[in-house]
């Protein structure tokens, strides 16, 4: 830090002299006009429909699953359709509810532990995460980074499946921020990795997953 | 009712017949016109080219030319009008006599179509013009002053007039004052884009109610040997028998 001091001091001096007339006061409050009222949620069913619709607009695939049996059926279909042979999943109580590990073993899908090497996870077919929150307005899932759910789990595999409990739905991004703002790292995921950099042609799965699934699980 | 004519330097030197028609229309509806001869130029060409001090000096002189007069000051231009209305008060420090004068005069200036529709509440001048007509939206008139409806209202009352949509009507025509001589190639490209849209509209006439835009588009149509004619709204109303 001592090497940078002259630069730091000079920049602060320049900023303060540029703002001469404004008296320095500890964290002056923002004026009311700098605030914007957050969105209000509608009825839960409507919010769920909205979430699914928005994810589909972003080229994601969606589903509602109720109960273990429905989940098992849907999951089997996903594994078959996407040709999944390897999967990595975080550690979450929701998986136990649906017996996910057993399902995977039954489908002969190799389970990689979350602390596998990045190279192994990069070659993995399916990453499964549970959303800490979901924002129906934009089809967004909040994924907080923890040891059990490192962020590249949702980034490196070819297919990404997000499970969303209905309680996770929030009205507005403000609330998602209130939840996660003190984390060291979190991501808002809204749809598939995409680009239109070549002649404005939409291409999915640039660097991130090529296929993105969101299931509302009750 | 009495009004003062704000003829604009472009208007006086390059569109004097249009100004005559403006007088004709106003007098026909019972408005007495006066012409403060010393107005010359409001100063915008100087100010907008970066010569703000010169622009201020011209402004003081312009205000003096109108100072002994009363009534609305009517202009056939949104650009010059906006300069007096918005810029003059900003040119002088608040509390000074010049600022007060600027605020007073800013309250008096009015664009022609605005004056007819909003002040005189006149929308039908008895004009008739049975042709297909498109309407260009000059940047300072529409985006700057928010004068959009007044032209439409006046055109809608013209008998037989078929108003056709103009694609990208609010896109700048490429005049931009000094821009047209600073970057002539780009100015031409923008003008040509506007002319292409005018041609595509199938209009026989295009209304261009801004002196700068008018000489730009009219010149462009001439260069293309186009059959389309560009007219100021004032000229169209006059042609249709309103003056």
């Amino acid at each position: 830090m001592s090497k940078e001091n002259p630069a730091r001091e000079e920049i602060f001096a320049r900023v303060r002299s540029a703002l001469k007339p404004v008296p320095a006061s500890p964290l002056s409050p923002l004026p009311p006009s700098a605030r914007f009222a957050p969105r209000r949620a509608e009825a839960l069913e409507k919010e769920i429909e909205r979430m699914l619709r928005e994810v589909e607009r972003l080229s994601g695939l969606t589903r509602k699953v109720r109960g273990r049996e429905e989940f098992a059926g849907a999951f089997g279909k996903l594994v078959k359709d996407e040709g999944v042979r390897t999967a990595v999943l975080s550690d979450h109580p929701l998986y136990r509810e649906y017996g996910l590990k057993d399902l995977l073993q039954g489908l002969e899908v190799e389970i990689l532990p979350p602390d596998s090497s990045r190279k192994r996870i990069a070659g993995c077919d399916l990453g499964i995460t549970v959303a800490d929150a979901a924002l129906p307005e934009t089809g967004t899932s909040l994924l907080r980074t923890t040891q059990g759910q490192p962020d590249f789990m949702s980034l490196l595999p070819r297919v990404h499946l997000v499970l969303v409990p209905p309680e996770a739905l929030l009205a507005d991004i403000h609330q998602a921020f209130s939840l996660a703002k003190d984390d060291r790292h979190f991501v808002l995921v809204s749809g598939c990795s995409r680009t239109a950099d070549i002649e404005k042609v939409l291409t999915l799965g640039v660097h991130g997953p090529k296929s993105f699934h969101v299931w509302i699980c009750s | 009712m009495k009004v003062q004519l704000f003829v604009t330097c472009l208007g006086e030197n390059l569109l004097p017949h249009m100004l005559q028609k403006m007088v004709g229309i106003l007098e026909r509806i019972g408005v007495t016109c006066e012409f403060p001869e010393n107005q010359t130029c409001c100063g915008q060409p100087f100010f907008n080219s970066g010569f703000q001090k010169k622009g201020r000096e011209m402004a003081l002189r312009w205000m003096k030319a109108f100072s002994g007069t009363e009534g609305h000051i009517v202009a056939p231009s949104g650009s010059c009008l906006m300069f007096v209305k918005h810029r003059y008060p900003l040119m002088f420090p608040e509390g000074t006599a010049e600022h007060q004068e600027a605020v007073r005069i800013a309250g008096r200036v009015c664009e022609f179509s605005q004056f007819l529709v909003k002040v005189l509440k006149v929308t039908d001048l008895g004009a008739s013009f049975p042709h297909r007509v498109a309407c260009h939206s000059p940047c300072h008139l529409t985006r700057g002053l928010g004068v959009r409806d007044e032209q439409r209202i006046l055109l809608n009352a013209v008998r037989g007039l078929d108003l056709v949509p103009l694609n990208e009507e609010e896109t700048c025509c490429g005049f931009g004052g000094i821009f047209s001589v600073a970057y002539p190639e780009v100015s031409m490209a923008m003008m040509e884009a506007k002319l292409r849209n005018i041609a595509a509209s199938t209009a026989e006439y295009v209304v261009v109610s801004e002196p700068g835009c008018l000489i730009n588009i009219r010149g462009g149509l001439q260069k293309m040997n186009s059959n389309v004619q560009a007219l100021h709204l004032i000229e169209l109303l006059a042609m249709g028998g309103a003056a």
Partner: protein
Amino acid sequence: MTGKTARIDFRANTRNVPPAMVAATQKSARTALAKRADVVREFGEEQWQLLRKAGHDLRMHALTHLDEYLALLEEKVTAAGGQVHWARNAEEANRIVLDIASRHGVRNVVKVKSMVTEEIELNHALEGRGIRVYETDLGEFIVQLAGQRPSHITAPALHMTKEEIADLFREKLKVKTEPDPRQLTEIARKLLREEFLGADMGISGGNFLVAETGTLILVTNEGNGRMCTSLPPVHVAIVGIEKILPDWDSAAVMLKLLARSVSGSKITAYNTFITGVREGGPREFHLVLLDNGRTRILRDETARETLACIRCGACMNICPVYNHVGGHAYGAVYPGPIGSILTPQLLGTQAAGGLTFASTLCGACSEICPVMIPITEILLHLRRRCMEGDELESSSAPAGIRAAARALQYVMGSPALYRLAGRLGRTLLAPLRHGDWIHRMPAPLDRWTLSRPFPAPQGDFLGWWRTRTKNTGHGGTSHE
């Protein structure tokens, strides 16, 4: 920037634009604007205006209290295990990054698209030390491979066709491919994945910095932002000091404005929020805060709003000038309307003053800017700096222009001379007339007639007025 002060000749640049560039620019802009209009309508026009106002006011609040927020940011980043560096200029910033690289024996770097790193020419500095740099945004990867400059701030390769890109990949990457965007993207994906997994250092810019918690926000669609900032052992972020937001509520407002303004999506695929160091992430996080002329812009109360820019590109999408000349014509990192106010302030009016005249002042940019930057006002302010000079710079206008302005004022400021000039004009130009038109005007109006004929001055309004007043008694005249 890096001390180069070669004059940007906008007019010359506009005369060399390939038609393909213009066509691509317009296609891209039209698409983005149409989608933006849809999402703004969905949001509600009135609500959108309130959101813009909130965006403006919070950005200006942050800028007018910049020292407080910079201090808070530094405190929070440091408390979270990150290291904060201060760079007064481009050389200093590059030196800081090179020091970090050398301390870690860095041989290859993966990079997220960042305008500020182009501003300081960071790649050049790294490559000069033998460090390989991979741009990882598809568009940036392509222009890097082609050795070109990006032509738009959010769609860097929009001026290139898929055929050109296929040729480029065949030549530089030695691969077989069709000119198909999906195939081309797949090639880039495979190649860059290897680089992500093996890189020694990841470099990014930053869309925003949240002072409240010391958080860096990256807004991307492709996923490379996450790759570069999660996989390599060291992450260096270079961010302009003006990118600061006071708190998380402000971040919410900004994210509602940004994606909609860029391209009409409601949100981008990935928004990454990084605070210091974390378990399982890079071992070291370095934040380099860059001045490079921003504090000088801050001094000017009228032009200060330039710094509110969130780099969405909406102003250039709607600018008719930009749409006819493309991004390269602006001769610097930032094109379009924002470029025409930012570049002259960063490089000085001697070098870039011409850009302040690259506008018809139509106002479309100010109207679309999500944070309500009064771009046309700032253009006028900078034109004054060019012609008259001000507190920050002396005039850079050629003596001939100043003399012409003086002469013109002398004539137009005197009613007698003004009228005389009018009469002389009518007389002297008469021989050039063809009917109502003059096809070649004398200088400087010869530039007008390059593009279209000039209306031959005819008729004398004052004469007409005085005659009818005398004859009919109609109308009066005021003399002062």
